[in-house]
């Protein structure tokens, strides 16, 4: 019986223009979104590669200088010496021998690699810089830069596949289902059908199956095509795992909207009323609730102003510069082993800025902590309130599955900070000991190796939204059952 109704419904759908129009729109939207997502990921990757290439180029020239210097010494004799800081380049040891110069004036780019699904959900990746310069400055210097992009377009947000799934797919689903029963009733065919041994439940379920199978086959098939289209290598287990989670989330989310249409339809109101109710519900769940939750988060836990942070950083910098003697003493007190022999007050520019950076870093630490805490509070609040709207759950789930979530970025930042420390320690110790960098040292500089999060961590973060969506669907499936028994087939 189910099969009969499903094939009948499919045939009916195929004969109305609506389905084809919607499928066409869907195909177009997903294709366009894949194009856009691919563009965004490629742009970021190019940015990271260009930035790294520039810095590598600067270091390569410095290395070449040291090689030339070493060769010159080998020919003419003399000791390989450390270059003091000098604005005018010329004879003597090149700047490339000075670890302070190399460590502070070039940077190693720390890159968060995109996952295979990055193009599907851009998330915050278009405003967060996903390649950070690790250098000898402060942490603030490392993270102050932002990915640049037309701010009007940032505000509008990306046209990625997550947008198609979260915003458009429900509209398409509701357009196919808002009059699931009401149209049959208004047309009079409902009574004709129910005069046969068919239950309403069977009828509804078959109608949903007919529509859902067409829509989901298209979405999932196109999702996979989109992945291939943006050039994702599908040979990694992680990519398939993420894609599986992505599909699961999409499935649950679509199911929610189908069930919502059922819930509205079993009350037996007219198609126009159903349409208003469903459009209103869409607006509330997809647009209004998320903005309200976001407003709540920023009102309850406002991030400390970046402007205040800037002022505080300058306060620390000025204080550091004014008490430079003190700061320098403190610095050397902490790095006794690095006090240069003979030269007890290396009052040169780089030493000063080194000491200064360290004291700014120390002064700013509490403020950073505050930022981090408020961000965690905000995130926790969003995590709690996500259950108010399937759209929020879906966005969090898709960001997580695509590797564009806040949590993954935070983890990356932690790794980046650690690497900055490593870089800083390497060059600071060489610089403070006035130990000249040799050409072969260039190949031993600290290198950043991104350590992917364990799959379990990703799964744990996905559990909340996925379980929420699942529970929501189960609830939505049970709700109409009671009402269904009271459904009035015949008008009075």
């Amino acid at each position: 019986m189910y099969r009969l109704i499903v094939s009948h419904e499919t045939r009916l759908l195929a004969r109305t223009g609506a389905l084809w129009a919607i499928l066409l729109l869907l195909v177009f939207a997903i294709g366009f979104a894949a194009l856009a997502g691919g563009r965004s990921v490629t742009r970021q990757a190019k940015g990271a590669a260009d930035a790294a290439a520039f810095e590598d180029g600067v270091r390569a020239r410095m290395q070449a200088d040291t090689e030339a210097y070493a060769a010159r010494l080998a020919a003419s004799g003399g000791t390989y010496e450390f270059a003091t800081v000098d604005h005018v380049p010329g004879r003597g040891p090149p700047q490339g021998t000075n670890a302070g110069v190399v460590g502070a004036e070039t940077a190693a780019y720390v890159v968060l690699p995109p996952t295979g699904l990055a193009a599907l959900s851009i998330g915050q990746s278009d405003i967060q810089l996903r390649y950070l310069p690790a250098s000898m400055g402060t942490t603030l210097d490392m993270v102050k830069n932002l990915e640049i992009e037309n701010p009007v377009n940032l505000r509008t947000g990306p046209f990625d596949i997550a947008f198609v799934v979260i915003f458009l797919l429900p509209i398409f689903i509701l357009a196919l289902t808002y009059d699931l029963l009401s149209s049959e009733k208004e047309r009079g065919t409902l009574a004709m059908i129910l005069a046969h041994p068919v239950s309403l439940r069977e009828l509804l379920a078959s109608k949903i199956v007919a529509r859902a199978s067409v829509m989901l086959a298209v979405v999932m098939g196109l999702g996979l095509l989109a992945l291939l289209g943006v050039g994702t290598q599908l040979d990694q287990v992680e990519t398939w795992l993420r894609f599986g989670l992505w599909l699961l989330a999409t499935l649950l989310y679509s199911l929610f909207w189908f069930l919502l249409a059922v819930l509205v339809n079993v009350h037996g109101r007219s198609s126009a009323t159903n349409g208003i109710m469903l459009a209103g519900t869409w607006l509330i769940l997809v647009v209004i609730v998320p903005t309200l939750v976001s407003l709540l988060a920023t009102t309850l836990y406002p991030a400390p102003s970046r402007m205040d942070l800037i002022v505080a950083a300058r306060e620390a910098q000025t204080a550091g510069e004014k008490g430079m003697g003190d700061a320098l003493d403190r610095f050397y007190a902490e790095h006794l082993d690095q006090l240069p022999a003979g030269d007890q007050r290396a009052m040169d520019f780089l030493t000063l800025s080194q000491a200064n950076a360290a004291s700014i870093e120390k002064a700013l630490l509490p403020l950073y902590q505050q930022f981090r805490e408020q961000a965690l509070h905000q995130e926790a609040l969003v995590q709690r309130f996500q259950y108010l709207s399937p759209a929020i759950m879906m966005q969090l789930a898709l960001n997580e599955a695509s590797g564009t979530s806040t949590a993954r970025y935070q983890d990356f930042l932690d790794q980046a900070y650690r690497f900055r420390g490593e870089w800083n320690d390497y060059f600071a110790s060489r610089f403070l000991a006035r130990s000249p960098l040799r050409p072969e040292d260039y190949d031993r500089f600290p290198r950043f190796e991104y350590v992917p999060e364990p799959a379990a961590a990703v799964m744990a973060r996905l559990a909340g939204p996925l379980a929420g969506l699942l529970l929501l669907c189960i609830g939505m499936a049970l709700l109409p059952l009671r009402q269904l028994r009271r459904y009035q087939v015949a008008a009075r």
Partner: protein
Amino acid sequence: MLEAIELKKSYGSHEALKGLNLRVGAGDIYCLLGANGAGKTTTINLFLNFVTPTSGEARVNGIDANADPLQTKRYLAYIPEQVMLYGNLSGLENLEYFARLGGHDGYSADDYRGFLQRVGLQEDAAARRVKTYSKGMRQKVGVAIALAKQARALLLDEPTSGLDPKASNEFSELLLQLKGEGAAILMATHDLFRAKETGTRIGIMRSGRLVQELSTDEVSHADLERIYLEHMR
């Protein structure tokens, strides 16, 4: 075949049906007469389980329609005032869908064409989309559905109202054929003439009650009209 036992239906304080008792046997055409709101359609809806009875039973082939609606609907065919079909499908496709909904999967394409031929639908019309059908053609498809379903009881709700006399006559002929095959037919109608011509028995309803039952061979047209008007007074 169709049996109403103390069947009551009320909507809030309004009693639409006040204890109806009625039997329609195989080969019977039972015509329900009565003014609008007398309870004719409610009776049919109760047999179809479109509404649940307040008390009493509507039995089809001895089974309570409210207790096992899916079983009773196997025996039923329903032809409303306007047979509603899927406009984007042809008459044939509509017939096939409804026949299979009724649980008959075994028919071939020729069988379906045969049903439509039997009810007098032109071959070229059968392949056209129902959108283009006249009312008479739709009612014929309704009968074809009943034929294909091999329905043992037919519930007809003013099936001929709005049909021109020729179409109406053709429809009555089809009913007589079905009757001859042993179907039990319950028909709500306003058409005293048709009721007398095609019906075997007549029930007159008023405000939810069956006020009189008679056999069509017991009365003349004139008598029927007189009795009816008396009850409506």
